[in-house]
């Protein structure tokens, strides 16, 4: 697999090397912690809202759940930033793995659906009357499926990589 020399140079930068090799508690695993916390903040409430749109927990009023979109955005920002640092730590590993790009695609679509749900269901003034947009069920199911796919893709990265760093294969 041809690896862009730029990625090799990236791995030799101080930041990349420090993230990968530092024994400090603030190194790679610290970034990974934020990535997991951010994930739980994005997907956790999202799944609850999706299940609510699918008809579960009908006694929970929909409108107040709109506040949770702020939390989900905070989670997404945490993951975007921590994600960048994770790629900076192992650029060859991430960017030569097709599963990584699959993960990014799943996330992009899931976030787009999250925004559509917010617009169609929560920003709709008829929400007060208890009427949910007709394609909300489809959006909710897609949302759950896409986040599950994104998480799975993320989990599989460690098992599908070709290179740990430039010139060093993954086991």
């Amino acid at each position, binding site marked *: 697999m041809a690896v862009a020399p730029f990625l090799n140079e990236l791995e030799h930068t101080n930041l990349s090397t420090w993230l990968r090799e530092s024994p400090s508690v603030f190194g790679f*695993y610290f970034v*990974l*912690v934020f990535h*997991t*916390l951010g*994930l*739980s*903040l994005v*997907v*956790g*409430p*999202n*799944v*609850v809202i999706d*299940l609510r749109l699918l008809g*579960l*927990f009908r*006694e*929970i*009023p929909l*409108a*107040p*759940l709109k*506040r*949770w979109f702020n939390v989900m955005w905070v989670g997404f920002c945490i993951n975007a930033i921590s994600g960048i640092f994770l790629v900076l730590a192992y650029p060859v590993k991430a960017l030569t793995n097709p599963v990584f790009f699959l993960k990014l695609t799943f996330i992009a679509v899931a976030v787009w659906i999250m925004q559509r749900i917010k617009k169609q269901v929560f920003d709709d003034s008829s929400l007060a009357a208890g009427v949910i947009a007709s394609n909300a069920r489809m959006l909710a199911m897609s949302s759950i499926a896409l*986040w*599950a796919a994104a*998480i*799975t893709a*993320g*989990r*599989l990265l*460690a*098992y599908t990589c070709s290179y740990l760093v430039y010139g060093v294969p993954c086991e």
Partner: protein
Amino acid sequence: MHVDFTHLHLLLNHFPILGTLIGLVLFLTSFFANTQDLRRSSLVIFVVTALLTIPTFMTGIGAQVKMVDQPGISLALIQRHEGAAELAIWFVEITGALALIGLWQSSRPPRPPRWNVLAILIFSLVGVALMARTGNTGGDIRHGEIRSTSGISERIASIEPSPGKFTSLMTSSKWWWAFMMDMHFFGLVLLIGTMGILNMRVLGFAKQLPIAPLNKLIPWGIAGFGINLVSGVLAFIGMPLFYTYDIAFVLKMVAILIAAGTLALYYLTAAFRDCEAIGPGQDAPMKAKFIAATSLILWFAVIILGRYIQPLQDSIPH
């Protein structure tokens, strides 16, 4: 006083053995009682027993490492005991899960449904029998005077898992391991999403939500916890030494037990009843807020500790 895994294992093993038995006795007695108190108490005991069985099971590995080279200790007898435990634990955990469902559904109307009662009866009976077997084989390790000479112990062992094979099975395929870790994240998401929304509301976030309907989320959170319990125990069986001597993992287990304790505190004390009446815009009582904050912090600590398992392997000297 010197505390090690052997000590902890011998201390903790009382809980699964006595807990299943006392739970069953109370449960059977409750059929002849007029009130639901005895039934509910037995269900609580089943849940607590299921939780404490986990650290009991896990400390067994550390105990094995300490004991196996000592004179008079047979590896074969240790493994027979381990195999018995690897069968018994599932029945104890399933009994606990069924008891939790029974407790949940018995708040309104005030009794668990019939299928639940029947299922608990079956699983708890088998659980008691298997825990007796586990305790007995555990005693055999040290106490030659109680070992049977009829060969019946070996015959029973033939239907129990072989620890070596169970371990190999868990690590035989990296895709199976990836699947288990994937499920672990799904469980995490369910748990944080549901528990997080309820706890944050109690603390005052998204105040237009009435609190009572949010309790409907918790069974899904418990389901997430259940997924993680199963995937977690299977992972532990797959790499027992790796997890046993990892301080992050040990602390993660402690945090989970305390977090489960806060959930119990919320539902078994007045905090739950006080919060039920809280409507949109209203503030929850301070006691409930304290429990909610503790719960949130603990579950996030569980996530953080979980991520630090990898770099902190071999952090406990042995």
